[in-house]
């Protein structure tokens, strides 16, 4: 399987810096901000963004993790359902600016599930989406507000975000099927 | 009509015969054992059956069958029960009195015998009830039933709990020299039990029937038989305790005989796992040690006969919660292959096995069957002991299909069943 490196660890680092700046710029600081990462890799990217915000603003926004398994729209089709992990949002999202973080935005279905789940926790004043990679092929009218890199892919290809926390090193690769 | 059975291995324990030879049947009787068959071969009036490689023996005798008629014809009729018997190699069957009405008077006995004569294809011998309506009190019309053709008395399924009633029954039957047949069970000890009491019942949360429930009653009945001098026959022995008690009683000269079913010598209560209602019968399938004791009892002669306790129940009656499913399984069409397994496993010789299905049960009830002596009625079975088969309940001739052996791979196929010189079954 051919492998194409899209981002290396330096690029990822710079991208986090840029995305964080954009978030702060758009929300005029971090006062009403909460950050929620989508399991599994979105959580680690969210952590990095939160740490960066703390460095820049001196305040650390509350951070949560989301497991969207129970909200998936493909449960009816699957023969084996994924293991349910815990969602942890130990703060109120009421009237907050929620930044939702995922590693890859693709069909938009994960984001749809995540939006629905967050709404069940309360009524934020806005939900924004940050993704490391936007690989196109949307099936729902959903767009990311902050994008690390936008690439055109074939649906036969696979985009993988590797992170130090889970995979030992930072990189984004495309696998050609 | 005449039949020549040619070249089979003839085994007749009643005569001590085990040899390859020919049997000639004429006018419903065993006519001769001809040395040569030339003169029959060209005779158009003689049906020739080539029995080479097969065993030819007296037709089997089952002294414990439930024919269900009158009263429960949706389970079995005398006709379907006889067809099932013929398919299993049985030429004589003895039917239990727990019909509706109960066979507790001569008119029911006569009804059964009339039906058997007109519709049945094997010999049918009825058992009368011990007590009126099998209610445990007041003797049934034992003498009149005997005159009408009953060969023994039993309250099968409804043990006589009152020892005094049992004593009087045992004394009374001596006038007719018929045995009292005991379904030995202490109903109080059994309580609401539905299977053997043991680890399996504990696991399954089903109420157990302890072995003691049978042992206590076997012990009582042997004691009363000693008191009265009656002939006692113990049905469907299931426990090691019973085997021990019967062995000891025989040794000291008590007139006691005993039978065992193929399911009790084949299965244990493990078969109930997953709540299979086709493994629910009374007495229940017991533990491993009980089954081992039964095998020893078969071998040493403590257990005289093999009887099926053929107890048909409809599919609907069995497809219910285990607690409310009726007790009993069909047995006529699986008895031979299961008994042959005893031979394969070295428990019995083929001669012993055949004896326990022919002359031994016949002698218990004085039926005069289970033999192919020259001059006796031509009741013969021809079977292939090595032929492999898969039990398929859908192919049963019985109206009911309640067998735990469905799908089992066994050996032993009945080729012909001949009753009074007529071929009533051939495969």
């Amino acid at each position, binding site marked *: 399987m051919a492998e194409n490196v899209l981002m290396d660890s330096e690029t990822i680092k710079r991208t986090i810096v840029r995305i964080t700046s954009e978030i702060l710029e758009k929300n005029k600081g971090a006062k009403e901000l909460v950050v929620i990462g989508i399991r599994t890799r979105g959580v680690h990217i969210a952590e990095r963004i939160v740490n960066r915000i703390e460095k820049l603003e001196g305040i650390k926004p509350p951070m949560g993790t989301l497991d969207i398994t129970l909200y998936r729209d493909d449960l009816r089709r699957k023969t084996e359902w994924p293991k349910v992990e815990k969602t942890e949002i130990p703060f109120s999202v009421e009237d907050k600016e929620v930044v939702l973080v995922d590693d890859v935005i693709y069909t938009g279905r994960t984001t749809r599930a995540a939006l629905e789940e967050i709404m069940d926790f309360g009524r934020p004043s806005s939900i924004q989406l940050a993704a490391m990679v936007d690989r196109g092929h949307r099936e729902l009218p959903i767009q990311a507000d902050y994008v690390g890199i936008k690439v055109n892919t074939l649906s036969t290809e696979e985009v993988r975000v590797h992170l130090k926390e889970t995979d030992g090193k930072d990189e984004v690769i495309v696998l050609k099927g | 009509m005449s039949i020549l059975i040619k070249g089979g291995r003839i085994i007749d324990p009643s005569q001590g015969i085990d040899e390859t030879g020919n049997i000639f049947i004429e006018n419903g009787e065993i006519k001769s054992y001809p040395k040569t068959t030339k003169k029959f071969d060209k005779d158009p009036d003689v049906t020739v059956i080539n029995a080479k490689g097969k065993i030819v023996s007296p037709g089997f005798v089952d002294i414990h069958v439930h024919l269900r008629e009158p009263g429960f014809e949706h389970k079995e009729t005398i006709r379907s029960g006889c067809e099932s018997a013929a398919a299993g190699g049985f030429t004589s069957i003895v039917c239990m009195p727990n019909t509706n009405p109960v066979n507790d008077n001569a008119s029911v006995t006569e009804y059964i015998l009339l039906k058997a004569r007109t519709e049945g294809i094997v010999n049918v011998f009825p058992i009368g009830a011990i007590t009126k309506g099998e209610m445990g009190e007041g003797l049934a019309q034992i003498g009149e039933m005997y005159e009408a053709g009953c060969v023994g008395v039993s309250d099968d399924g409804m043990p006589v709990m009152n020892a005094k009633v049992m004593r009087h029954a045992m004394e009374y039957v001596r006038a007719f020299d018929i045995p009292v047949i005991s379904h030995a069970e202490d109903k109080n000890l059994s309580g609401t039990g539905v299977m053997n009491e043991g680890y399996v019942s504990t696991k*399954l949360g*089903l109420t157990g029937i302890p072995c003691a429930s049978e042992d206590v009653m076997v012990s009582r009945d042997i004691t009363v038989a000693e008191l009265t001098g009656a002939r006692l026959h113990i049905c469907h022995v299931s426990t090691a305790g019973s085997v021990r008690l019967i062995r000891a009683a025989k040794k000291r000269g008590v007139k006691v005989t005993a039978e065992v079913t193929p399911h009790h010598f084949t299965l244990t209560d493990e078969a109930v796992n997953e709540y299979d209602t086709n493994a629910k019968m009374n007495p229940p399938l017991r533990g491993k040690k009980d089954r081992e004791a039964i095998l020893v009892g078969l071998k040493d002669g403590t257990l005289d006969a093999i009887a099926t306790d053929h107890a048909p129940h409809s599919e609907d009656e069995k497809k219910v919660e*285990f607690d409310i499913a009726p007790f009993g399984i069909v047995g006529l069409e699986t008895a031979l292959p299961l008994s042959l397994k005893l031979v394969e496993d070295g428990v019995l010789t083929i001669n012993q096995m055949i004896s326990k299905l022919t002359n031994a049960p016949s002698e218990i009830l004085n039926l005069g069957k289970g033999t192919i002596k020259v001059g006796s009625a031509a009741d013969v079975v021809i079977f292939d002991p090595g032929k492999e088969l898969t039990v398929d309940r859908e192919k049963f001739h019985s109206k009911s299909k309640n067998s735990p052996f469905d799908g089992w791979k066994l050996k032993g196929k009945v080729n012909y069943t001949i009753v009074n010189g007529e071929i009533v079954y051939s495969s």
Partner: protein
Amino acid sequence: MKFQRKHILGLEELTAEEITLVLDTAESMKEVSERDVKKVPALRGVTVCNLFYEPSTRTRSSFEIAEKRLSADVLNFTLSHSSVSKGETLLDTARNLEAMGAGVIVIRHPMSGAPWLLAKELNSSIINAGDGSHEHPSQALLDLFTIREIKGKIKGLRVVIVGDILHSRVARSNIWGLLKLGAKVRLVGPPTLIPKYIENAKIRTFYNLDEAIEGADVIIMLRIQMERQESEYFPSLREYSRFYGLTREKLRGASEDVTVMHPGPINRGIELSSDIADDAGSVILDQVSNGIAVRMAMFYLVASAGRDA
């Protein structure tokens, strides 16, 4: 690991891994119960039928809440078995429910093995909500969940089950679950109510409460049925309570941080003295809320494995 079972009929046939998966999944489900909006869409479009042949408001309500929190459509069918035995058979009733589209049938029945009959004959997933004296898997799973939550583990714990083992489905399910997860199980009660054959499962049995609870980490008290004294299992409730009721004094022999559990409802002053019943109260309420999470987990896992691909 993946959960492959279409039915949950008892803990005896589950592996330790499967039991642990249910407990882990229940932890995620517990979080849902702590939200303001206690509902997720996982079982949208699935019809679950609660077929109850015994009145049990508690268990039925717990199942019903679990079903609703997963967005299933719920159909309640409560029948008295006495009327049923004269009328429609269990199988016919269940086939009707299946025809109505029930993908999962939760069954509570006074006869052991009734759920097995449905599992054999129907296409729906079957969850056993208690059958006769056989098993009560959801109760045992919630007991295990609660023990794990309080003690942080199950392996190596000394657990004593007290009372009518012979007739108790809660006891049987707990025995299998605890043994599989590595606990040491002891049983104690009057000899008439301790089936001797259970020792085949490598469990120690006792007739003396003091001996049995020596060093116990967890004590599970079973509810005693009033009618047992009529069948000569013991002379009177008073005498039963004297020998097998748990009091502050008897509890001294147990481990210092012993947890006392009861599947409820408690006969105060009989199984537990009033003060112990009060102390145990908070655990019992934990058990109730954990019960919902565990049942949600059971539904999620069974619905996922039970579909025809």
